[in-house]
């Protein structure tokens, strides 16, 4: 092979051990393993939930019991034993916190290792962080500042207590409990997550961000996120994930629902870096996420994701373009390595007239990983003048990895214009040669090319995240993106 020097960079990029693999020793309050109605009642009572939510959970559980775990994805993994998982764990401290000093020092250390210095973030970056450690939100910043604008940004459990009318109205409205196996499971057992509401006409002045971490060995994490943007509002929401190193597989089955009411805009960015397992794929996180947004008239939802972690990823952030003139976007970079497997993509369902959607997906496969794009573009009879552009490119780094594309295009309207294109290739030797010629060494050349390849997506990320994303891609940018 002509660019054997690549291997060095690739090894560095791909063979690097997981930096954030550490665990925090905090005593936690943990439910016994297994799932049954009693566990759900326990979760519900621990969270001091109203009766309607308990009923909702139990209904979801009843549905889930009748469902089969999907086997259509292009993934091979040992199906988790859902009865061996503990469905509730919460750090024991329960008292209300007024300042950061009151936070457990252990937990503070974790935050610092993750680079989330609360003070720094408060002071410098203007990012409000809802820090979730193992299912219970322990610290929320900038809440007051946001409160002045009428923006609600809190943990899901607080939202259930303080804003039950909003939660009841929108929870499950985009991802119904019956939607799929994992969303039903999540609906039954979700422990916490974030809730965000932007009132009419408000432009959220800062990026809202939540850090999720899986802590506590053997617990699954079932996050539930609900973002509601009321008419003519705007919000940019960041979600980032890092998880400590584990030996047994951890299950992460989150549900994210976005509601973009008339003329609003939601920008949802994710950097996902769950523990991918060791080089043989042992011990990584199973990431089975259902993410979906609904767009009302003239609204816009934009999904941006950088997927670098997880042993198995099953994730399709989708947009239902219900209102006329609504816009859906999906930008994704998925990097798989070693024995990682990803089956990810999006669904764009065009219902309203003059709806537009754009899909840009960039897959990079290294090691013996498998990276699949699976997408659906559906134009229903009512969606006159719908427009879609999809581009799915794959970059193969090794001859043992795989890159796959499964686009579904279903059109029932003659005025629709749908385009899909996909390419698969390795890094061009001519490109490397071009760089070498100009004195750029091979490592840098590959970094340059990979970054250029992913740039279209990275550019969509908010500043704060873009930096982290690039770090996660583990390739120095060398001045190509500011």
């Amino acid at each position: 092979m002509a660019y054997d020097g690549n291997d060095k960079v690739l090894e560095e990029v791909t063979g690097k051990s997981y930096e954030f693999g550490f665990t925090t020793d905090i005593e936690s309050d943990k439910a016994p393993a297994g799932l049954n109605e009693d566990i759900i009642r326990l979760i519900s009572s621990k969270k001091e939930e109203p009766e309607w939510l308990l009923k909702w959970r139990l209904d979801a559980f009843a549905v889930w019991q009748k469902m089969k775990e999907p086997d259509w994805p292009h993934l091979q993994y040992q199906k988790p034993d859902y009865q061996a998982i503990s469905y509730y764990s919460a750090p024991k401290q329960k008292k209300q916190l007024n300042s950061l000093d009151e936070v457990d020092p252990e937990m503070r250390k974790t935050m610092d290792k993750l680079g989330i210095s609360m003070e720094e973030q408060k002071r410098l970056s203007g990012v409000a962080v809802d820090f979730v450690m193992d299912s219970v939100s322990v610290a929320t910043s900038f809440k007051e500042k946001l409160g002045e604008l009428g923006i609600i940004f809190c943990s899901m459990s607080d939202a259930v207590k303080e804003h039950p009318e909003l939660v009841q109205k929108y929870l499950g409205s985009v991802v119904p409990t019956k939607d799929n196996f994992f969303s039903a499971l999540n609906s039954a057992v979700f422990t916490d997550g974030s809730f965000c509401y932007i009132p009419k006409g408000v432009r959220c002045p800062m990026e809202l961000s939540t850090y999720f971490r899986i802590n506590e060995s053997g617990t699954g994490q079932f996050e539930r996120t609900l973002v509601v943007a009321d008419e003519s509002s705007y919000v940019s929401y960041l979600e980032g994930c890092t998880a400590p190193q584990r030996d047994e597989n951890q299950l992460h089955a989150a549900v994210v629902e976005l509601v973009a009411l008339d003329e609003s805009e939601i920008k949802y960015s994710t950097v996902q870096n769950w523990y991918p397992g060791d080089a043989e794929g042992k011990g990584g996180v199973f990431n089975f996420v259902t993410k979906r947004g609904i767009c009302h008239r003239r609204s816009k939802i934009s999904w941006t994701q950088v997927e670098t972690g997880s042993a198995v990823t099953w994730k399709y952030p989708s947009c239902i373009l219900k209102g006329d003139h609504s816009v859906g976007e999906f930008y994704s970079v998925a990097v798989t390595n070693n024995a990682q497997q990803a089956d990810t993509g999006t669904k764009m369902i065009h219902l309203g007239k003059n709806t537009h959607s754009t899909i840009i997906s960039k897959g990079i496969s290294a090691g013996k990983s498998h990276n699949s794009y699976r997408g659906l573009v559906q134009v229903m009879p009512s969606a006159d003048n719908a427009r879609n552009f999809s581009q799915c490119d794959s970059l193969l780094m090794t001859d043992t990895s795989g890159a796959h594309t499964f686009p579904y295009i279903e059109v029932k309207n003659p005025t629709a214009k749908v385009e899909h294109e996909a390419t698969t290739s390795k890094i061009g030797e001519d490109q490397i040669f071009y760089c070498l010629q100009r004195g750029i060494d091979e490592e840098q050349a590959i970094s340059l090319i990979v970054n250029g390849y992913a740039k279209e997506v990275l550019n969509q990320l908010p500043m704060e995240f873009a930096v982290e994303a690039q770090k996660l891609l583990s390739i120095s940018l060398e001045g190509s993106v500011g």
Partner: protein
Amino acid sequence: MTGTAEPIVMDLKRAPNVHAATQAKGEALRAALAAQRTGTGLAAEQLDALPVPHRRVERWKHTPVAGFWSTPEAPSVQTIEAAGSEACPVPGLHAYRMVFVNGTFDAKASDLPVHNGVRCEPISMSDADAGSQGPLESTDWFAALNQAFATEGMKLHVAKGVILDRPLLVHHHTSGENNANFMRHDIHIEANAQVELIHWSTASDSSTGMVNIMTHMSVESGAVVALDKVQDEAGSLQHLAFEQINQAQSSQVRVHTGTIQGNWVRNDLNFRLNGEGCETVLNGFFLPKGKEFVDNHTTVDHRAAHCNSSEQYQGILYGTSSGVFNGKVFVRPHAQQTNAYQQNGNILVTDKATINAKPELEIYADDVKCSHGCTIGQFDEEALFYARSRGIGEKEAKAMLVHAFIGDVLEGFAVAEVRMEVEHRLAIKHGWDTWNDTLESA
């Protein structure tokens, strides 16, 4: 570079997906067939194990099977004369001919090749064992059904280095109601031989039931094969065509599939490129109107290095018709230096027409160039305006655009007479009287 690790997710085994009601209907059909005719005695195990297709089976997601389950009747007509049709559907075609009517060989209407090194005969007259056919490579229930009940078809063997002087036309005609016609063509082309094949299916207006044709082709090294496949069936048939083409080193195969007319048509075209340096071309067009349904499933399985495949399928959908395109390009771990191209273009003309496209890539080798594109749109307004501003009527202008849209595919047909007849029949079907002019100048 080494690449010994077998991909773990390739050929994933999934639990059979059974839909009880459909399964029962399929079993009933199988039992009715078994009671009515002597089959080949093959594929019983596969039929037991495979689920009867329904919409929850991925490959049949958009393909309705409800029309299949009427009880089959033995065909009353067995010659082209009795069916009142032409032996050769292509005027002026100078070709060898095999005619099958309702799955029965019509010797009188046929004109078998007399050529050194070429053995061409109906399976019923072949002295080879009935069981000499290759194993079933498809995992489709209907393919297994074909294997179990297809006792007739063409057996073609072309010896090493022989170049057949004329094309060989296989004409299959269907008439009568509640058909269940199974055909199996076994084609073996030895090294460096060359042959042009035409598969042409027709049917009478009142015909109903199922036509199920399996073509098994083995192309040895350096051989060159062109297959022009035309489906022009009146009546309301369910037409299933399976092609399994195995290519050896440096062989070239071109398959062009044109669906002019057909109530319900499914083509399941599979290539296996087993040797290095194969060239594969598969093109097709479909222009369904009314309630017609056309499904093209294609698989190109690159199993060896240095192979090229190129695929282009173009569809224009009128009326309440629906179309399915599912193209899969598979590149196995050692198939380095593969060059695979796939293009699918669709135009929806009316608001009740539907297209479901799924251009897939599954790639397990890194030094490859694979690309696919898929578009769905409508006639270019500007091009229409251009034509109309020069005094061409709307209908004619659209016909010109259609011709341009499927032109690349049409040009690829190996036999010129076939292409002319295809264009002629399309013009009749869609009422384009201007086509002949544009063609003659073309």
